[in-house]
């Protein structure tokens, strides 16, 4: 199997990009133009980036309410994400989903939805279908995104919809992450979810089926130790999540979700195993969310975190650690990192500009697409 090149600079850049995007969304949220529940992933960027670095567009990702990072790390179109937050027709979901319903089929990001654990079995089902297609059990079966793609929202349509002033979407839309090449290996599916999600019964049902069928599926548990404002200790006994997955028969590992190099290495092994037909893999990665559960603000003052907890996690910022690594090792230098920032400022400005010029979905369109 071909091996993706380890490139801390790229990983850092991807994390930085997600951070700056989330910050920009937070900064603009108070304008009351993005009128939908929005769960930011600031502080948790390393997981999405370290895992998605190993995925091609043929690999698929499913995600949850806190999905911006997963979407972006998988190469999801940024302007269309923003347009979605604004409720515009050009949004990745035509404005129908907002922050909690993202999709970019071209990028292999199938869907995020906000019913906790709702997408977990879907990811397994998708992986199962991939496996059947590969084994020939379901030969001749129709292509993935069989739904009619409405013209106004088709990815290729972006630039034209947005009119002349907006930059071409091909340029700003896609994350610039390099694609690992692995031509003949099996596609994998990745499902991202939280520690709270692990409490839902359907998780257990999915672990069982995934192992039974040896699915090419990677479970990534982002254990940020909170479900909304409720700490783990009020919801789960003192034992390891990944060990339950291991008892189900998955290959399961845990690690520091704030160290992108560690996430990268763990994901590399897990995804290689999944591609090689060794069955489903499970990663439990520890991290911490900085902003409030839902919304643009910090909420440390509410007092549900232990005193000093947030501060300690901020010292362990995934970006800070990667940046230090880059500088210490000489892989990069301040000027280059500053250039990254500048490039991102520009990308973001263009993306917001495009997104904010979106068009309102017509009221007549509201009833469309109930049935395929």
């Amino acid at each position, binding site marked *: 199997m071909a091996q993706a090149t380890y490139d801390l600079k790229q990983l850092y850049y991807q994390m930085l990009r997600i951070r700056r995007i989330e910050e920009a969304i937070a900064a603009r949220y108070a304008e009351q133009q993005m009128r939908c529940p929005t769960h930011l992933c600031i502080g948790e960027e390393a997981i999405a980036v370290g895992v998605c670095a190993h995925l091609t567009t043929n690999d698929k990702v499913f995600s949850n309410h806190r999905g911006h990072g997963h979407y972006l790390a998988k190469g999801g179109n940024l302007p269309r994400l923003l347009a979605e937050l604004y409720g515009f027709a050009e949004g990745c979901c035509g404005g129908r989903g907002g922050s909690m319903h993202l999709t970019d089929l071209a990028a292999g990001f199938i869907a995020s939805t906000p019913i906790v654990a709702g997408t977990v079995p879907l990811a397994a*089902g998708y992986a199962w279908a991939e496996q059947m297609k590969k084994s020939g*059990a379901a030969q001749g079966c129709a292509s993935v995104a069989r739904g009619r*793609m409405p013209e106004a929202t088709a990815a290729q349509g972006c630039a034209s919809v947005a009119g002349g002033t907006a930059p071409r979407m091909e340029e700003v839309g896609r994350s610039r992450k390099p694609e690992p090449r692995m031509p003949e290996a099996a596609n994998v599916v990745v499902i991202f979810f939280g520690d709270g999600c692990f409490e839902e019964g359907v998780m257990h049902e999915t672990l069982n089926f995934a192992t039974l069928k040896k699915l090419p599926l990677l479970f990534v548990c982002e254990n940020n130790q909170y479900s909304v404002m409720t700490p783990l200790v009020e919801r789960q006994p003192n034992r390891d999540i990944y060990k339950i997955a291991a008892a189900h028969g998955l290959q399961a590992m845990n690690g520091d979700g704030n160290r992108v190099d560690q996430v990268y290495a763990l994901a590399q092994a897990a995804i290689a195993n999944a591609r090689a037909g060794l069955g489903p893999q499970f990663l439990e990665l520890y991290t911490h969310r900085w902003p409030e559960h839902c919304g643009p603000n910090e909420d440390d003052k509410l007092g549900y975190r232990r005193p000093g907890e947030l501060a300690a996690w901020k010292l362990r910022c995934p970006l800070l650690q990667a940046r230090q690594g880059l500088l210490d090792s000489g892989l990069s230098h301040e000027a280059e990192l500053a250039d990254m920032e500048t490039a991102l400022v520009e990308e973001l400005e263009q993306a917001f500009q495009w997104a904010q010029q979106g068009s309102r979905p017509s009221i007549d369109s509201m009833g469309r*697409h109930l049935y395929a």
Partner: protein
Amino acid sequence: MHDVAVMSYGEAIREALDDALAKYPEMILIGEGVPDPKNIFGTTQGLREKYGSERVLDMPLAENGMTGICIGAALAGMRPVLVHQRIDFALLSIDQLVNNAAKWHYMFNGQQQVSLVVRVIIGRGWGQGPQHSQSLQAMFAQVPGLRVVMPTTAGDAYQFMLDAIADNNPVLFIEHRWLHPIKGEVDKTRSSAELVGASLLRRGNDITLAAFSHMSIEALKAATVLARHGVEAEVLDMRCLTPLDVDSVVRSVAKTGRLLVADCAPEMASMGHQLLSALFQSHSQRLRQAPRLIAYPNHPVPTSHFVANHYYPGAEEIAAKVLDMLDRQPLKEAVMLELQNDLAKDLPDRSFTGPF
């Protein structure tokens, strides 16, 4: 050219599954007991042998998870048919059906679709009791984005199953267990009904009987005997719940002026209310008298056959109500006599010796 065969409702379903498995390489058939020796009351017999254990398979007891897994497979281009031997078990999966399957195409603005068929069996008899013989169709029929059908005849069962599998939406396919042994004509060349429209089972001018699923059989029985006494009932089989074919009922009552709805569900959960309400809002003037609804009582069904046998209305109750509505009470005695039979009320037919 017609290719009509007589077969039971259960055989018609098996036949449709067989034909669909042959036609759609992306179809999979999954459910608890699908490949076991009893194969869902015979409706999946021989299919594993014919299409292999990757496409025809059993599953863990995990209704919600497996529904989600089938939805995920559908997103990747498969056409899963998921079977629950009892609709009661589907309650465990209502999260995935309602939150995901029903909404996915809409929610993602038409970019994705879920071609999923969920077969569920409703029924009664042999003391299946409160948790194993519910009639929950209205709970699903009210969900925008789900198609819900409950065909009554073998011919419709065949056609609807093929249509449901071909459909690019989630379809809940509801079978009344007591329909399984009933034979009918299956015309494989019949063109698709596209899962819409009531079906006219019998013509008549005196009253319209709009009935659901197995109640259509009971309505037909009642109509047949009533006809011998000069009362001609028109029988409409309300085989599609979403959308409910109100227009056909309107046309029929325009002729008969009278309407009796017969549902196989508790009154509180009767789709009949939806039908009556729609009529009330737009066509009440077509009725010569107030319509009536026959449904089950508003409580669970007890197990004991001594009482459960009185839980279910049937042809006798329908005929009696018709005679009341037409003010022909004197006919009652004779009609009831002709409707009586000695088959125990908790058995679908004489061949059945329990348990389900």
